[in-house]
């Protein structure tokens, strides 16, 4: 059985920078498992601009952003096993991998799960009505269009204002489809402000806030959707139902971390897989980063998280260094989730999202030995917040640390 120090599952943004983080910190034996024939992951189908503003201070397309990382992997001769799929992982970190060369078992000292996310489907949101062709998740429609040159609809309606949906509203318009509108269940958009502006407003595509699709109509092809307004409790207001004719409904209703490979292991879960400040799960040597851990809105943050996780993997491999868990992150009022959920006294970057919109508010970080507030003009669920606390700040605290929003 081949033995590798660090096996990285997924050659997307998180996996590639994870490899570089580990390499730069002394790990020599690294293998990236990639299911496609190229690295880059979902970046390869994101041909729009807007990637790399934080990391490279320039606006790149998805493939160009991926290429920058690939060039560094190539330069450092990091081994990538293409067209390969991890079938299973055991708790003692033996991976079973399928490829054209056969099934191979590899023993790893550390594993970085960077397998990205999957899209929420119509079934997950209990989309009701007929079951016609023409209902697609936005990412699948994006792959059909940007990779294969195929438009899956001429008259398109979009449910959910997640970023992929907004990007697809513009893409499909530019490629010749008519995008009739975007419905969002919440009273606020779930996409980045710049995407609302550049993808909807610039193309006069209406955004229907507090609206949802109550029924899909047509068989075998989608003929129409039923759109309705919802009240403040997200209940459909019956007399607002209207029929909109369209041949395609795109769903942009959120992403779910794809942690299915470690689901069957005894890994501790909260809303997400529980990790420490080194991005290590409750199983020693299994790390997670990027969308496989929690959903990001900017790839730059995926890359930096991947890099940090890669660094932690290197230290784990070299010195068996693990976080000595002393504290838990407590999700306070207004907060959806916090990563990491457990941590020690080193520098820790907390990533979290709020669960509703706040204007002129404070982020309050509080515990025995810490009481810190950060003023914010606004906080929205669609934008991830990151706060770094230094080891000096953390060394004084006893017990757990709560993050909450004070409005």
């Amino acid at each position, binding site marked *: 059985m081949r033995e590798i120090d660090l096996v990285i599952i997924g050659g997307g943004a998180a996996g590639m920078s994870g490899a570089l983080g580990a390499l730069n910190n002394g790990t020599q034996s690294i293998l990236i498992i990639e299911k496609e024939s190229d690295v880059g992951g979902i970046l390869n189908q994101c041909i729009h601009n807007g990637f790399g503003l934080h990391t490279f201070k320039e606006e790149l397309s998805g493939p160009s952003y991926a290429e920058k990382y690939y060039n560094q992997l190539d330069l450092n001769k990091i081994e990538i096993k293409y067209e390969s799929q991890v079938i299973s992982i055991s708790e003692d970190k033996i991976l079973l991998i*399928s490829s054209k060369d*056969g099934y191979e078992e590899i023993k790893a000292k550390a594993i970085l799960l960077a397998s990205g996310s*999957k*899209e929420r489907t119509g*079934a997950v949101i209990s989309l009701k009505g007929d079951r016609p062709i023409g209902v697609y998740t936005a990412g*699948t429609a994006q792959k059909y269009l940007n*990779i294969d*040159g195929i438009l899956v609809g001429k008259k398109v309606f979009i449910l959910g204002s997640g970023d992929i949906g907004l990007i697809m509203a513009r893409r499909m318009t530019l490629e010749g489809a008519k995008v009739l509108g975007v419905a969002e269940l919440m009273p606020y958009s779930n996409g980045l402000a710049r995407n609302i502006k550049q993808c909807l407003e610039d193309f006069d595509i209406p955004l229907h806030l507090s609206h949802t699709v109550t029924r899909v109509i047509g068989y075998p092809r989608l003929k129409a959707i039923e759109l309705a307004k919802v009240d403040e409790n997200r209940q459909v207001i019956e007399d607002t139902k209207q029929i909109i004719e369209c041949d395609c409904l795109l769903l942009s209703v959120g992403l779910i971390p794809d942690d299915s490979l470690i689901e069957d292991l005894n890994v501790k879960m909260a809303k997400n897989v529980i990790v420490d400040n080194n991005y290590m799960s409750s199983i020693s040597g299994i790390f997670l980063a990027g969308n496989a851990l929690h959903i990001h809105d900017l790839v730059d943050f995926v890359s930096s998280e991947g890099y940090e996780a890669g660094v932690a993997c290197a230290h784990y491999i070299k010195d068996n260094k693990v976080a000595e868990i002393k504290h838990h992150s407590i999700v306070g009022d207004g907060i959806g989730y916090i990563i990491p959920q457990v941590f020690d006294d080193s520098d820790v970057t907390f990533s979290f999202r709020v669960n509703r919109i706040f204007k002129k508010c404070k982020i309050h970080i509080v515990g025995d030995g810490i009481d810190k507030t950060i003023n914010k003009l606004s906080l929205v669920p669609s934008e991830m917040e990151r706060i770094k606390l230094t080891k000096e700040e953390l060394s004084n605290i006893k017990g757990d640390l709560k993050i909450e929003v004070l409005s």
Partner: protein
Amino acid sequence: MYDVAIIGAGISGSLIAHELSKYDLKIAVFEKEADMAQGASGANSAIVHSGHDPIDGTLKAKFNVLGNRMFKGLCEELQVAYKEIGAFVCATNKQEEETLMTLYERAKSRDIKCELLEPSKALELEPNLSDDVTKVLSLPTTGIITPWEVVISAMEEANINGTDVFLETEVKTLEYKDGIYTINEQYQTKVLIDAAGVYADDIYRLLAPCDYDITPRKGEYFILDHLKHNVVNRVIYPVPGKKGKGVLVVPTIHNNILLGPNSDPIDYKDDISTSNGLDYVKANVTKTVKNIPFNKIIHTYAGLRPSGNYHDFVIKEDDDYKNFIHVACIESPGLASSPAIAKYVCDELVLPKFESHLKENYIRRTPLTIMNNLSLEEKNQKIKENPEFGEIVCRCEKISKAEVKEAINRPLGATSIKGVKRRVRPGMGACQGGFCEPLIFKILKEELNLKDEEVKYDGQGSEVMKAKAKELL
């Protein structure tokens, strides 16, 4: 001229064709959809009931009991999956316990293996039974199948042995003259079998006023993803009520869980939409089972039961039209009964009309390769023979490119994305085709020499592509 023409490629039609194809008869099957098992046979609870439920004296009781005993052998013959996982019928109060006793007595009188269990004993075997359960009837001979796999495989084997299968061929006209039936003014047959599911009465009416009526009853279901720990290990029924067997929890062959169905009469025979029936399913399923992870729902679907106004199967030769055989109103337990119905129709109704003999060179179908069922050594041997067995196209269900190609390139193989999905499962997993569908699209296009605009999700009118990029500008 055909000896026998069968209308409908559901479980009844396909098993009758399969049974008859063993004899030297000329057989045709007409199906309006692009694939087999597209009606009730493709959307149901996937259970081979033990035969405890139908009331005495009905065809349902007769064929269910026999069918259950035949099913394992049939699946071995077709080389498809059958699992005898057993079932619990769960009572939650005194009144239901009385009904349970009736079922118990009925099962015993039919020589169906059964046992009454106290909740404590039942909980040992099914820890997630609801705390409200007061008495359990265990029916260990209850089985599960993948219904469309049985249908498709039976039809495939019939086809290999000479049965003509006309897909996307709706029967629009029927004529009877001089002892011969003519279908669509084109195909002639001596014996005509109406196995058209919810449309059986409509087919009958093409010839004469129909003496039964079918009102479809819709059932809606949820499917749960593979779970680390199964919620249940066997089929869990509530005590049956007026509307049928109630809302069930059913493990599937591929380690998913089905929850459903509800039961609502509907007006249109093509209404397979999902609506608030799902809310009903959610509310009722917890009566018998607790700890159901509703957050693991990956799919919803609805099926139509072809319910007749006499509340029993209609299986007989027509009184007025000679050699016209009705196999109609095959609602639950139709699936479980189907091997027995096919045998009866073949042996009692069709074969006596001909001087036919068993074929000497009957050919068995070649089963599909299922990589997930092979050992590591066997997998590597397969990949050595064909590296595409190592190329995973469906990451949720771990299906290789070669398995997809096998499903396409075979008699009555898949011609659509849905056809591939039902034969080898890409799209059945948590992503519901989000990742793999564009890959399956490409494989179909290459294997069937199609243009982009010709690749379909299912039948006519379900082409994936609406336009090429920039074509509309």
